């Protein structure tokens, strides 16, 4: 067929004159098929022309052979599809004699049939299209159904449209197969340029493709314009094309476009939207485009695709900074527009299409995970049956039931006891504690709150804003959570589900679990629950580099076509380790030696990826937990003591090493020590495996690390910072680590058990192994039974926790803001005490260090009071701002009698089991201490501390005096004064010139300005007062807590960005020859954008 073939009366649909325009570019791979397909059309084209855009392969020769050299045009390599078509239509203006010809079946219509070199029409494609043209005379543009080149059941496109953001929408699911479900002729906004049949007059009327869209969106722009011009754009599903999508799928490089196709794609999308939308919607569209640009850029940043984010922003800006070009383009389009935009609107994708796409994508991914996790999902049973046969789910439910039964006595009310202080009702209160720079605990504290409070607060916010519920879930739910984590973490080692269930159940019911819960060790319980996940992630992060040389890893990655993973796995490992360390910092310390070994091994093997990963895992927790981690560095005792209120009654006084090996950390509510002995034996059996001994050895390495660490923890007498108390540590998390290690080794033995027994002759091994396996299998059952029988012991309580009588609490707010000391005779003769303001102690207070000087002062006063030296104690207590003393009524005969005999305090009344004593000396948060007078004077009501508190009315005095603030001395406390308006104040200030500095008598009382000299008295903050009357305000200047919070946030964001799997980069072209997965979705943009010029 040549270009001279114009019209043949014997042709089907003879009134249609079709000029096929094929644009080819390095398409020799597909061109023979394409050319053959065009030439074997049942209804042949009248003229076939081709444009070769500088191909480097044999494209030119193939074209010449097919259509003749005269019908092949040469174009620059950079020329786009639209320009090439325009070039061809200009060169072959009209079919000769066409204007004077008229067929029998009507007026002659000339068509342009646009073809890609990688798109092959089915034999009846053109005939079907022309048939449609006859059926629908108003049709100006006809598109074809595009199927895959190799897989001809794969649907690629059946018409296209745009969503509100300018993204191309094909209505197809990724990888959707063609079952005829989209068949039928229908109006669409646009059709693909591959196989597009367009009436030549319409083409010329509309000016062809927009030259501003060299590569992308030329088809949708053209279709949109055609629709607005009143022409119908119809998809003809009977016309079928095979399409290789060579450019889109990366099978050939883009030569005609820029090096950033994503930017060009977005730029084209925005250009299309802004040039074609109605004038009324233009401002809104501009705003939307700008907002979307910011959002999409942010998402690209989150997906660790900064170049794409940059492209997105550049695309948006590059369109918006060309208003003249935009207006020119809109003016040009206005000339051809014949119908209002609202009539075209139904052809666009409805709102929510993109969100639905994301949802479907997420659902698919979850389904993939589910399929990987368990074959049960893939069967055709009902959902309920599938769920109840999920081993993991059954495990968690079972552990949950055991936990609830064992914890039956502490399920209601507020949890407290042991190391656990009661949580405040609101998660907001806990969050405020975390963010505050100064804490109104009994003594007051400037310590930065520990990070675990923030985590509990966040979980509490999710749990209906209840911090108490969060504590319950974390502490009481630690066993099922630990079981789930262990089940997940065991997957790489144990492939047998039953064995995994056994491993997870045994781990979850280790004595550490019941011991942590019974003694209120929230920190250990949470760390115990996340330990399997920590081990999994750290192992996954660090083990591959140790086994694989970095260069080998890279080459392997290249060979397999995947990207080098880099350091990404280390970030989630570091994050989870930080989470566990926030609750029990010993977890980090125990893992540190193993990480150090990994670091050395990586250095020896020159695996720089491994080195970086180790460094990331090591550095994320301390950085994220700053400044708390710095405090741990300065007070290593806190590592041993853990979070919460330490106590000497919660652990064994001397823990034998063998106990730890038997997974028995000592303390209350533990099962018999022999219960887990079989695990150690089974773990030993794991070490005797001939094949794949690695996991068992790793398990023992873990166990020995935990054993050594735990023995150190149990043996160290740690001094509680800020007090004189000294306690031994509880090796809870270390024992858990020993347990995890031994269970790993035991599970390895279990994995090989059946094969080894069946492959060897019967002997002593079989009965021994059977007994061992049976005992091991019974271990979790026995542990659960013991736990249920013992319950949670007598340390952990649940119920109301209010100590302060209402009148005491009320007076602690008003009347001098005095404090209360609570005494409790201990079992071995000591007197325990705490100091309260207007509320009870709450979660986190024990972790906020008090000033040692204050503790010593109040401790001495309490000792004096308990010994019966009442007068001195009363003076000391009042100087510490303590007005009330609470003693249990049950101690009336002992401690109460001694206090009564000592004097200095007066009994007020008895309420709630407490006898309230009032200190018979002036006690308040602020007091005026005159030289030589032990009885300090209160400045009067109302008093308060803070910039907005009422000013203190200080009377004049003849003697020197100081204003005492019963808080630990700190340069952050400040006091400022002005002369009081009264004669003694103002006049006195004038008379005693300079006492109030530059403020003097002239300044209004409401504007304090003169700082009072800071001093200390009896270990308390004090300020030297002038002898004149003055109005004084005491306040605390801001410190650096906000800076630290910002730092934590930045570190968290960096770690999260590092942990998020990176999305595929647009610049990474797939290599020719590799099979292409058609269902790969862009994590940000959703389904792959179908590039018009494929």
């Amino acid at each position, binding site marked *: 067929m040549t270009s001279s073939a114009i019209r043949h009366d014997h042709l089907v649909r003879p009134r249609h004159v079709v000029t096929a325009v094929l644009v080819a570019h390095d398409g020799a791979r597909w061109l023979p098929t394409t050319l053959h397909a065009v030439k074997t059309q049942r209804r042949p084209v009248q003229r076939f022309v081709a444009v070769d855009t500088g191909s480097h392969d044999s494209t030119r020769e193939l074209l010449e052979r097919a259509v003749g050299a005269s019908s092949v045009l040469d174009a620059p390599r950079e020329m786009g599809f639209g320009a090439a078509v325009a070039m061809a239509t200009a060169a072959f203006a009209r079919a000769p004699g066409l204007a004077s010809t008229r067929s029998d079946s009507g007026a002659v219509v000339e068509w342009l049939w646009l073809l890609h070199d990688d798109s092959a029409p089915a034999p009846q494609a053109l005939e079907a299209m022309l048939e449609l043209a006859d059926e629908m005379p108003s049709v100006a543009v006809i598109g074809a159904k595009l199927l895959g080149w190799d897989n001809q059941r794969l649907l690629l496109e059946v018409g296209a449209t745009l969503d509100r953001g300018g993204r191309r929408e094909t209505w197809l699911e990724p990888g959707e197969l063609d079952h005829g479900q989209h068949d039928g002729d229908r109006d669409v906004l646009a059709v693909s340029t591959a196989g597009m049949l367009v009436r030549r007059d319409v083409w010329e009327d509309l000016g062809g493709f927009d030259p501003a869209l060299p590569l992308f969106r030329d088809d949708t722009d053209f279709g949109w314009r055609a629709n607005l011009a009143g022409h119908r754009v119809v998809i003809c599903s009977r016309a079928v094309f095979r399409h290789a999508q060579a450019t889109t799928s990366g099978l050939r490089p883009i030569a005609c476009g820029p090096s950033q196709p994503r930017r060009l794609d977005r730029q084209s999308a925005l250009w299309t939207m802004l040039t074609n939308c109605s004038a009324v919607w233009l401002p809104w569209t501009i705003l939307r485009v700008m907002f979307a640009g910011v959002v999409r850029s942010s998402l690209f940043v989150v997906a660790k695709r900064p170049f794409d984010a940059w492209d997105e922003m550049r695309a948006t800006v590059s369109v918006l900074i060309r208003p003249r070009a935009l207006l020119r383009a809109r003016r040009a389009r206005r000339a051809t527009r014949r119908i209002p935009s609202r009539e075209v609107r139904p052809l666009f994708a409805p709102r929510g299409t993109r969100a639905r796409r994301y949802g479907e994508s997420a659902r698919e991914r979850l389904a993939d995970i589910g399929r990987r996790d368990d074959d049960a999902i893939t069967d055709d049973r009902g959902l309920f049956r599938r769920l109840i046969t999920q081993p993991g789910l059954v495990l968690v439910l079972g552990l949950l039931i055991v936990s609830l039964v064992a914890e039956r006595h502490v399920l209601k009310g507020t949890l407290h*006891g042991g190391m656990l202080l009661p949580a405040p009702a609101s998660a907001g209160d806990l969050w405020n504690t975390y963010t505050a720079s100064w804490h109104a605990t009994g003594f007051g504290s400037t310590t930065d709150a520990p990070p675990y409070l923030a985590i509990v607060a966040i979980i509490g916010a999710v749990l209906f804003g209840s911090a108490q519920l969060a504590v319950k879930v974390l502490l009481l739910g630690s066993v099922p959570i630990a079981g789930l984590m262990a089940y997940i973490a065991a997957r790489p080692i144990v492939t047998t589900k039953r064995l995994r269930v056994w491993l997870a159940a045994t781990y979850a019911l280790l004595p550490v679990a019941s011991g942590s819960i019974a003694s209120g060790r929230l920190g250990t319980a949470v760390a115990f629950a996340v330990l399997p996940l920590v081990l999994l992630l750290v192992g996954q992060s660090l083990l591959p580099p140790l086994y694989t040389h970095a260069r080998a890893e890279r080459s392997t990655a290249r060979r397999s076509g995947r990207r080098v993973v880099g350091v990404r796995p280390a970030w989630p490992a570091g994050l989870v380790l930080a989470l566990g360390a926030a609750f029990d910092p010993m977890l980090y310390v125990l893992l540190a030696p193993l990480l150090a070994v990994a670091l050395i091994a990586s250095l020896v093997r020159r695996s720089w990826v491994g080195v970086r990963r180790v460094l990331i895992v090591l550095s994320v927790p301390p950085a994220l937990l700053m400044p708390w981690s710095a405090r741990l560095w300065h007070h290593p005792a806190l590592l041993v003591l853990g979070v919460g209120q330490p106590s000497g009654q919660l652990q064994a006084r001397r823990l034998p090493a063998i106990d730890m090996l038997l997974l028995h950390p000592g303390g209350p509510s533990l099962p018999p020590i022999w219960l887990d002995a079989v695990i150690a034996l089974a773990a030993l059996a794991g*070490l005797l495996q001939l094949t794949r001994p690695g996991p068992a*050895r790793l398990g023992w390495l873990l166990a020995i690390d935990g054993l050594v660490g735990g023995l150190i923890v149990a043996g160290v007498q740690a001094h509680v910072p800020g007090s*004189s108390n000294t306690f031994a540590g509880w090796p809870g998390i270390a024992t858990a680590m020993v347990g995890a290690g031994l269970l790993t080794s035991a599970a390895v033995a279990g994995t090989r058990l059946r094969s080894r027994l069946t492959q060897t002759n019967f002997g002593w091994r079989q009965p021994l192994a059977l007994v061992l396996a049976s005992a091991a299998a019974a271990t979790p059952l026995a542990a659960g039974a013991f736990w249920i029988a013992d319950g949670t012991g007598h340390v952990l*309580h649940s119920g109301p926790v209010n100590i302060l009588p209402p009148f005491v609490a009320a007076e602690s707010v008003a009347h001098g803001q005095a404090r209360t000391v609570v005494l409790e005779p201990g079992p071995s*003769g000591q007197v325990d005490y705490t100091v309260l303001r207007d509320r009870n102690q709450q979660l986190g207070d024990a972790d906020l260090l008090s000033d040692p000087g204050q503790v010593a002062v109040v401790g001495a006063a309490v000792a004096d009071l308990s*010994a019966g030296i009442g007068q001195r104690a009363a003076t000391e207590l009042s100087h510490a701002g303590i007005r009330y003393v609470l003693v249990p009524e049950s101690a009336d005969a002992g401690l109460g009698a001694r206090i009564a005999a000592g004097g200095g305090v007066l009994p007020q009344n008895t309420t709630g089991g407490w006898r309230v004593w009032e200190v018979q000396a002036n006690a308040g948060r602020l007091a005026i201490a005159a030289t030589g007078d032990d009885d300090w004077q209160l400045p009067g009501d109302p008093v308060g501390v803070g910039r907005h508190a009422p000013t203190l009315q200080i009377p004049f005095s003849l003697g020197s005096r100081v204003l005492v603030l019963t808080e630990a001395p700190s340069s952050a406390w400040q006091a400022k004064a002005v002369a009081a308006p009264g004669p003694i104040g103002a006049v006195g200030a004038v008379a005693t010139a300079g006492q109030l500095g530059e403020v003097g008598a002239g300044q209004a009382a409401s504007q304090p300005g003169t700082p009072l000299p800071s001093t200390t008295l009896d270990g308390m903050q004090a300020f030297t007062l002038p002898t004149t009357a003055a109005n004084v305000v005491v306040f605390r200047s801001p410190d650096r807590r906000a800076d630290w919070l910002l730092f934590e946030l930045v570190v968290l964001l960096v770690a999260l960005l590092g942990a998020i799997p990176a999305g595929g980069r647009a610049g990474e072209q797939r290599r020719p020859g590799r099979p292409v997965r058609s269902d790969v979705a862009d994590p940000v943009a959703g389904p792959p954008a179908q590039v018009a010029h494929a």
Partner: protein
Amino acid sequence: MRLDPRLAAVPVVALVVAVTWVAAVVAPTPHGSAASLSSVIAVREANLVCPQAGGAGTGPAAGGALASGATSPGAARIAYADAGPTDSADSHLTTQALGAGASAAPVAIQPGHGWVVDGPVALTPTQVSVSGSLTDALSAVQFTRTMVGTVPQASAVQCDGPTTDAWFAGFSSNVGAHATLLLSNVDSVQASANVSIWGGEGGEPTVRQGIVVAAQTQVVVALDQIDPGLPVAVVHVAATAGRVVPALRADAENGSIPLGVDWLPRTTAPATTQTVPGILGDAGSRQLVVGNPGTLDATYSLTAVTSDGAYVPTEFTSLTVAAGDVSQISLDPVLQGSAAAIVVTSTQPVVVGGISTSPPDGTGASDYAFTGAALPLSGPTVVAGGEIAAGRDTTLLLSAPGADDAAVRVVVLPTQPDSPPVVNDMTVPGGTTTVLDLASLTTDPAPGVVVIPEGGGPLYAAWSLTEVLQDSTDLTELVLQTPTRTLLRPPVQFDPGAGLP
């Protein structure tokens, strides 16, 4: 040659064994209990109250001076004794009338000696403030000679510190008898006390609640008006707020004939075994008072500890005192003039006291002295004052009611500056009472005495002063109670969770 991978178990097991062994070897010894960390601290400050000291007296001295020196009858003097070392530079001693605004007057300290000073001009409660090491070694005793009609009657009371709980046994509110409770408050805050009196019918005590004693004041409560007509009674003073220094003075007369004036010593709180030292010898009546403040009848027996030994009189093997009742038992048939201590063993907690009455003179006048139950001496116990002169005897009654002998050292503190203390070591045989006349040790007119238990069985002691004027005999008596010299300061521990249920 490739090694068997199972050999990896050998170093692993060896490592575990090594770690276990090392841990067992180097494990630290656990700390002792918290109680062992308690500290014993010496009391270095005390505020004592002499309930009615000072006064100008009612006339010229009659029959000589009480506790040395010439003092008008009716005036009270304070005798001090300092058993401490000579270098008590850290010590301070002041007196002042009880009351806000009163100024403290320093008192010169005479280490190792006894001395007597006048009280304030007006008869008033007097606060004796002592600090430093002197607190351990000082005794202050108020001596009064009250003229009843023309008959002087001596009385002595230990100047004592504040308490919240005190018992007295043996006063009467019959016609002619007066019982005056003086509640002093040396603290700076108001105190409130309840007074319960047993001895009436029905077993229920008569209670006066909420007696307010303002800071630095004294309140006088006439017990005989609260519950009159009691032949013998027991009173309990309980401070419900603050602390008080209670002192109970009893006097009785028949018209113008004095029948006795003296202060009741504090007796120990109700217990099932009580030991009452200081039942005086010689002529006169000796009574034992047993009160049962409980709600169950008490059956008790008496053991008399005399110089001849300890025995249970057959008539006193099983006595009963009803719940809420107070019994008075005459010891005369049993003791027959012997000095003694009485041990009461009861089925229910009882309160016990003793009354020694001098034989009446020609006018029918007599005097009495009170004793009460006490705890055995636990350390050096100082008692000030006393007189040694013609017709005036100061004696110590030392009892060892147990089976073991009690070694005791008696140190006489002289009043003369240059005189050295006189030390006398002796043994009180188990189950006996020994009477030591101080005149046998010293001729000092007003010697202080230190009684130091040196080991052996429990030792109880009483001090008495007998004054024979013409045909009348004045009696007064003190029961020695070792003061609390040390306090147990418990270890304290800051525990934020303290008090949580």
